[in-house]
């Protein structure tokens, strides 16, 4: 099996007159947890949407497990969008049934386990839940798949610090070591300990890629402090 799970070459996406992604070339191996870090409107979500075929590039290409984004890649990619897309009237147990029908790699037992750990009742409807609880349900659904690539768009944006810890623990506890997780975020301090590598993105361009420990070694500071310097307003 090829060791590269995601590869893109000269990827460019233009919205009107704005280059949301500008000639991005990247290659991400299997078995890594990667942080896609950048301020708002830097191109993080555009990149993730391109990987999921929700957008098509103006130039360049993406390959996931050697394939262009499409039906086949969706079988191996588990995607957490930044917005809630689940039907409000559904019960958690309904959604779990839907997911297990839809995805061959969905592990129902794992999903119920995680729900239990978080005190979320399967019979509850989404509309009765707080924003934070809904986010947890979404993350549980995404992490219950035995995927090869997880694309998590702002998984910790809306939750309190305690839930954030739980979410990071869920990510660490539920991924297998051959899978890769890409986490897009601008909240770095809480998350950098669980990352192998980081990609800094600004105005659609990659400005830095390195491992967390090399950044700490080279600059004598955390990724969070370096980020604040690089993206100083």
């Amino acid at each position, binding site marked *: 099996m090829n060791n590269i799970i995601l590869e893109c070459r000269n990827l460019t996406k233009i919205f009107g007159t704005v280059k949301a992604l500008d000639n991005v070339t990247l290659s991400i191996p299997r078995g890594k*947890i990667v942080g896609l870090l950048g301020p708002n409107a830097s191109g993080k979500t555009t990149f993730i949407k391109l990987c999921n075929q929700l957008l098509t590039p103006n130039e360049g290409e993406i390959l996931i497990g050697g394939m262009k984004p499409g039906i086949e890649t969706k079988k191996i990619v588990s995607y957490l969008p930044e917005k809630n897309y689940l039907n409000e009237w559904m019960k958690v147990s309904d959604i779990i049934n839907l997911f297990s029908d839809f995805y061959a790699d969905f592990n129902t037992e794992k999903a119920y386990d995680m729900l239990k750990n978080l005190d979320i009742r399967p019979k509850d409807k989404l509309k009765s839940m707080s924003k934070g609880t809904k986010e947890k349900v979404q993350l549980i659904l995404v992490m219950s798949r035995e995927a090869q690539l997880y694309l998590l768009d702002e998984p910790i944006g809306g939750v309190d610090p305690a839930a954030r810890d739980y979410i990071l623990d869920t990510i*660490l*506890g539920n991924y297998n070591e051959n899978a890769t997780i890409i986490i897009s975020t601008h909240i770095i301090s809480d998350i950098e*300990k669980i990352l*192998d590598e980081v990609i800094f993105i600004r105005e659609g361009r990659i400005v830095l890629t390195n491992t*967390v420990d090399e950044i*700490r070694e080279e600059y004598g*500071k955390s990724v969070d402090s370096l980020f604040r310097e690089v993206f100083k307003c």
Partner: protein
Amino acid sequence: MHWDIKTDRPIYTQLIEQIQLKICSGVYPPGSRLPSVRDLAREASVNPNTMQRALAELEEAGLLYTHRTSGRFVTEDTDMIKHVKNSLAEKHVQEFLKKMIELGFDSSEIMSIISEMMKREGDET
């Protein structure tokens, strides 16, 4: 169990130091089996590859060893553990001395501060 990861240094070196500390202080006794990489990573809230790297270095140094089928163990060589303990002590004392010298104390002053404080501690307990 508590893991304390500072922000200004590489994570894997801090993991090495803290595992050494846990071995020296008997949290992981000689000859005992360590938790799996995944469990240790989860406990410390760090990346599993980073934890793996720290364990591999400790194994290289001989403080840990891997048994092919049953996992990773702390060495039974108590002399080696003692040696690690001494070098950790040296490191702490060096840091302490550096700070005291920065504060402007000379050796005899440092010695008298230490013995004074130890006497006081002894009185209290």
